[in-house]
């Protein structure tokens, strides 16, 4: 009697379990080792899937499957042609772009010069409100497309020559223009994307048609996934997998748990809380590659107490970068002592010189001689996991400079920016920068030139602005780099910001894939990834 009762008690949960498991087969992943099966890559919900409107990594990861760029970057991060046959210019002002023949959109349309012109005009036209429209600002006629009622609908600097050739005229010579063309904003759009000239068809974004190695499989399933499959008519290098499922996660920790149990193939950014165990959890499936990001502490140089470069240098010298990257970031980032990232041509190690070497005694003497403030405030956004390193930095400043130091959290980065724009006193503040395209200029112009889009520190140096302009107008890239380096040296003298850390991609993959590479733009290289 007792035994029978016991059997009943064990049988009941078992039956329920089996019943549930049987229900579950529909949703589970196939998991067989089919070489053509889709690989599953983690992304966040993209904000948009229109090339000129996509400037975050999740969207550009998906678009990198659907589109083939005009240029891509080699190991040394120099551009080489992909969908373009040649990109040439004699004066860096008038550029001729020849397309490779044979490319077709996923709906069968042939790719022509018009597709590029239509897409770029759409992107530059201000009333369309495209996030990446500023990428076109160097092209002649951009200003006429701005404002509430623009004077023109198309860029005067874009001219079609024949079906596979078009010319781009810039307002000013720009030596890095070819480098820019690898960015997401410069993909073409098919005729099917437009319902009328210059009007994007409703619903295009739900299933974008591109000319890349993969085509959409069904629609974008918001908050769930985007599936793509191999496009057989793609004339370029064919991918080694049959398709990709971009699975949408809100929290990276959930994605990490899925990678550990082979439910997901690639996680592009291992969450900080898992970094210390990632090496043991994943073994050699935990990998690192250089990324373009740069973390800095910036000075409001418009405030009197921080106006002296000596004060700024002394603070830099009082921070032990190596210790913080090691103990707080577990070597997931690298200490930085330059204003440009090692991933761009022209990078030099340790351009900030003595200000980058940790020397508490000298820092304190210098700080006191220059009359630095007795109290330092470090502002940061509380939603980005910055508290630990800000507190550590504060402690170092307290110990090494003998000042009071507090970390102040703003809820979001936007709140910090609002205060800065109103020139409210926030003390030193943290900033991060991710490049748009691999060029030194991209680390200098927007951040430190007088009218730079992200110059929140009020830094203005006419000499610096002049060098940057000369660099952009230089005849060759090598000459440009020389000018940019001279400009960087000026920054090292003035120290408007303290470079702290260069980013790295810390990614991991399941046992089911191999050859996983994450590029400078935090995208998985879909042409290299393979099933294991």
């Amino acid at each position, binding site marked *: 009697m007792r035994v029978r009762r016991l059997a009943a008690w064990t049988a009941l949960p078992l039956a329920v379990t089996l019943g549930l498991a049987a229900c579950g087969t529909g949703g589970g992943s196939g998991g067989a080792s089919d070489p053509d099966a889709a690989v599953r890559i983690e992304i966040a919900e993209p904000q948009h899937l229109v090339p000129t409107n996509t400037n975050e990594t999740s969207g550009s990861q998906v678009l990198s499957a659907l589109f083939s760029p005009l240029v891509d970057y080699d190991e040394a991060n120099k551009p080489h042609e992909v969908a373009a046959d040649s990109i040439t210019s004699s004066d860096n002002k008038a550029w001729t772009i020849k397309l490779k023949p044979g490319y077709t959109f996923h709906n069968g349309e042939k790719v022509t010069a018009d597709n590029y012109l239509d897409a770029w005009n759409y992107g530059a036209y*201000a009333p369309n409100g495209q996030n990446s429209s500023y990428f076109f600002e160097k092209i002649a006629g951009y200003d006429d497309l701005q404002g509430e009622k623009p004077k023109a609908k198309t860029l005067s600097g874009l001219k079609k020559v024949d079906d596979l050739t078009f010319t781009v005229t810039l307002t000013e010579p720009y030596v890095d223009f070819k480098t820019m063309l690898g960015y997401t904003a410069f993909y073409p759009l098919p005729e099917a994307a437009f319902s009328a000239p210059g009007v994007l068809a409703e619903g295009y974004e739900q299933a974008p048609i591109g000319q890349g190695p993969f085509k959409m499989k069904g629609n974008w399933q918001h908050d769930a996934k985007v599936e793509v499959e191999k496009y057989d008519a793609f004339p370029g290098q064919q991918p080694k997998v049959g398709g990709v499922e971009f699975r949408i996660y*809100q929290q990276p920790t959930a994605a990490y748990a899925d990678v550990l149990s082979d439910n997901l193939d690639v996680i592009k950014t291992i969450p900080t809380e898992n970094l210390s165990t990632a090496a043991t959890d994943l073994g050699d499936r935990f990998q690192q590659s250089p990324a373009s990001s740069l973390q800095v502490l910036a000075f409001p140089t418009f405030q009197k107490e921080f106006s002296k470069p000596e004060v700024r240098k002394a603070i830099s010298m009082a921070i032990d970068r190596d210790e913080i990257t090691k103990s707080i970031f577990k070597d997931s980032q690298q200490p930085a002592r330059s204003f440009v990232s090692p991933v761009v041509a022209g990078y030099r190690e340790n351009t900030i010189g003595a200000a980058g070497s940790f020397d508490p005694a000298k820092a304190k003497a210098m700080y006191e001689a220059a009359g630095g403030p007795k109290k330092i405030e470090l502002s940061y956004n509380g939603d980005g996991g910055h508290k630990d390193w800000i507190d550590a930095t504060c402690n170092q400043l307290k110990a090494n400079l003998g000042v009071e130091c507090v970390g102040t959290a703003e809820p979001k980065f936007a709140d910090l920016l609002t205060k800065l724009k109103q020139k409210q006193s926030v003390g030193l503040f943290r900033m991060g920068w991710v490049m748009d395209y691999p060029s030194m200029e991209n680390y200098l112009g927007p951040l430190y030139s007088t009218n730079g889009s992200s110059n929140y520190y009020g830094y203005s140096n006419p000499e610096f602005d002049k060098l940057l302009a000369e660099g952009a107008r230089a005849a060759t890239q090598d000459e440009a780099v020389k000018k940019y380096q001279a400009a960087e040296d000026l920054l090292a003298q003035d120290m408007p910001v303290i470079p702290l850390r260069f980013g790295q991609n810390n990614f991991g993959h399941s046992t089911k894939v191999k050859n996983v590479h994450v590029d400078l733009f935090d995208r998985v290289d879909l042409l290299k990834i393979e099933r294991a």
Partner: protein
Amino acid sequence: MLRFILRRLLQMVLAFFGTTLIVYALMFAGQGDPIQALAGERPVTAAQRAYLTEKYHLDATGVGGFFYRYLNYLGGLLRGDLGQSLTGRQIGDILAAAWPVTVKLAVIAMAVTILVGVTAGVIAGIRRAGVFDHATLVLTLLVLGIPTIVLAPLAQYFLGVRWPIFPPTAGAQPSLWALLLPGIVLGSLSLATALRLTRTSVSENLRADYVRTARSKGLVRRRIVGVHVLRNSLIPVVTFLGVELGNLMSGAIITEGVFNIPGVGFNLFRGIRTEDGPLVVGIVSVLVVVYLLSNLVVDVLYAVLDPRIRYE
């Protein structure tokens, strides 16, 4: 009874509009710079700012601006249009995709709570001070002491990754099996409370006069417990469960995040993070309706459980 329900439904309409007003006002007052919040740390171009400002009337500020925007929203609402989120998606679509999975999760959590919590509570109440009673007391204390933010990742790690019994995440179209673990985690907190409530209630009622009368009448123990005691003991439990149903749906922010379930909590969290006023108002308004409905059901159930309670 019917009049009572009708009256409550009418009150509900008022409560609904009241909440939208309050939530809209709160979101409006707390709004910093939603355009920058959407862009994160990337710079926002002037053209993009102008475009979004015009599209969402973000330049309408102050009291006049508030009423302009709120009435605009209300007008859309009456036409069945919940508006657009800042990324241009229809909020109606977002909610339509998010609700089914959240409801599924809440139903599983509720089922777990009722099946395990009430059953174990009755047993513990009958065998008061026994081994089972003590064991459940310690266990529930433990569960009540661990917040979901700890419990959910622990359950995921041990039952999903270490010993892969359950899939570690559920995803957007989860099977019942994949939702079971998040459901248990979500339900565990209310399970513990329900268990303790039932236990106390049952053990108290067991000493009531009517039980003694029933026993002296010679009724079998099973009937005394199953019909008389249970029915009377369930009143506080039902009150609790009714409120909890609303909690389960809105309070699943952590659980849905950990198990990657794109439900209501998941979207609410995103809405708050990106200062997406219309999205938050839309979700909260529907949540209010859920709360009001579940409270109505509770009130009706009172009358069913206890004939002494009447509504007129």
